[in-house]
């Protein structure tokens, strides 16, 4: 990846993290851990990969994105606002009655949200429907979806995995944010979905394993996915829950807890430092 582009995307990822935390802090509720772990891939998708137009969010030919792990809406909303779908000021009204940013993505109320999600396992199925529609109508748009690794415990995910392979949805690219933690602890202790790549492979998918915080690897994976015909692709991304805020990293308790004043200030400082460091690089 071009160094300038990479630097810009890295800064965007940090800004997504900052605003995601702002959302959760303002609402005094929400899901910071998993929002932070998908900031890099969202920066890549919304600012490099996807063929979209924030001025025309319902554009028929646009690439679609479904946040199957809908609880990480703070990161999605931040990416959408930064991309220009709606004013960034909305972020501070996250989860607030009378404002548009619901606790989980609402396609009816938020420009840029392609599918309402939140109940785990359903987003990937909806993404299959969207991808299938492109096949049936001979449209060239691609469909992207992000799942959590804990979400793989939902049986519906594997119904969708069979469906996508059956209908050869090579225009669908799923991404599993494999941060290893869910609310109740380590995914392996709660109900292990491991090994993730092997399972998808057996279900007939093209599988790519990457580091979910490495933009070069993210780009390589999405580029490779486009070359694979006849089967859907899943990118299994090893990631760090709470990535970018030292005291939130790899801690299940940050799955669904809002930072207090002091923690928020500390987190912002770390993220601002990261931005400053990018500037001097």
């Amino acid at each position: 990846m071009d160094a300038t582009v990479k630097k810009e995307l890295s800064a965007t990822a940090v800004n997504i993290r900052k605003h995601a935390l702002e959302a959760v802090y303002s609402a005094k509720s929400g899901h910071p851990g998993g929002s932070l772990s998908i900031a890099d891939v969202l920066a890549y998708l919304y600012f490099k990969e996807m063929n979209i137009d924030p001025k025309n969010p319902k554009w028929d030919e646009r690439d679609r994105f479904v946040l199957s792990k809908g609880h990480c809406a703070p990161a999605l909303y931040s990416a959408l606002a930064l991309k220009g779908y709606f004013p960034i000021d909305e972020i501070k009204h996250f989860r607030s009655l009378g404002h548009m940013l619901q606790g989980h993505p609402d396609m009816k109320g938020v420009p840029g949200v392609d599918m309402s999600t939140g109940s785990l396992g359903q987003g990937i199925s909806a993404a299959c429907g969207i991808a299938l529609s492109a096949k049936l109508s001979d449209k060239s748009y691609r469909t992207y979806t992000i799942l959590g690794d804990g979400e793989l415990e939902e049986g519906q995910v594997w119904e969708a995995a069979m469906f996508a392979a059956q209908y050869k949805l090579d225009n669908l690219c799923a991404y599993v944010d494999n941060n290893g933690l869910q609310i109740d602890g380590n995914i392996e202790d709660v109900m292990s979905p491991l090994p993730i790549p092997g399972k998808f492979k057996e279900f007939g998918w093209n599988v790519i394993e990457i580091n979910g915080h490495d933009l070069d690897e993210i780009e390589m994976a999405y580029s490779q996915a486009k070359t694979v015909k006849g089967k859907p692709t899943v990118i299994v991304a090893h990631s760090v829950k709470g990535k970018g805020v030292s005291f939130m990293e790899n801690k299940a308790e940050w799955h669904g807890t809002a930072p207090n004043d002091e923690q928020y200030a500390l987190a912002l400082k770390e993220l601002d430092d990261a931005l400053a460091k990018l500037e001097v690089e």
Partner: protein
Amino acid sequence: MADVKKIATRDSYGDALVEFGAVYQDILVLDADLSTATKTAKFKKKFPDRHINCGIAECNMMSVAAGLASTGKIVFASSFAMFAAGRAFEQVRNSIGYPHLNVKIGATHAGLSVGEDGATHQCCEDIGLMCTIPGMVIINPADDIEARAAVEAAIKYNGPVYLRFGRLPVSVINDKPDYHFEIGRGIELASGKDVTIIATGLMVPEALKAKEILAAEGINARIVNIHTIKPIDREIIAKAAKETGAIVTAEEHNIIGGLGSAVCEVVAEECPVPVVRVGVEDAFGKSGTATAVLEYYGLTAENIAKKAKKAISLKK
């Protein structure tokens, strides 16, 4: 009413899909490995590229339907009522209902008249489940003509619709030149002043028979067909309460959460009069021939007539 033509509404559903599939190119039909039973196989034969078999995975099917609808398709998602409304309830609620997507749920084998398959496949809870989803339209047609009209109306309506069809061939009663179907509009099939029988689905012909039984005893019953359970026709129900002073409801569904409950809600709010409900009295079904099972649970003209007299006796 001797020698009337009998057609199962699931067949009407399949036929209507074929008919309107030719007109509306955006119609897609999804099924969950039951296409020969739900009769979507008829559509598949005519439009193989627009029929998507989702396999035995109803939850995925409902969310796939939502995704397809989000791109502008008119999607029919078909399975037995038990699995469409029951198993996949939460997908219907969250993937389809919450974003108010243009998905039509074609639920066949509803009620007790599945017969031999027994309680696991008989569904007398689906209307109740679907009624609780905001914005969901629920249509329970009485015969072939109404079922086809319901499919057409569902296509023209933009939003989620639950269509309830049966396996048992039922008498065609709506073959009249002035028959008109409108979502949310009940139909007065016969006038009367002593009591009103409000029926839905296959209980409508039974209600008409009950009218004859009551007439022999000098009771003049009004008959109202409510094909749309939600949004319900408040006007026709309130008018019946006011003018006849007593109501009997008849449905192939649990009396809790179905037509009976919906009518009671309207009557209590608009014009309180006695209402007696005929339906499945909070029980699971049993195996048997469809007619034997319907009779066992009291879903007959005779029982409606009996309950009509009870309703009249409760008048103040």
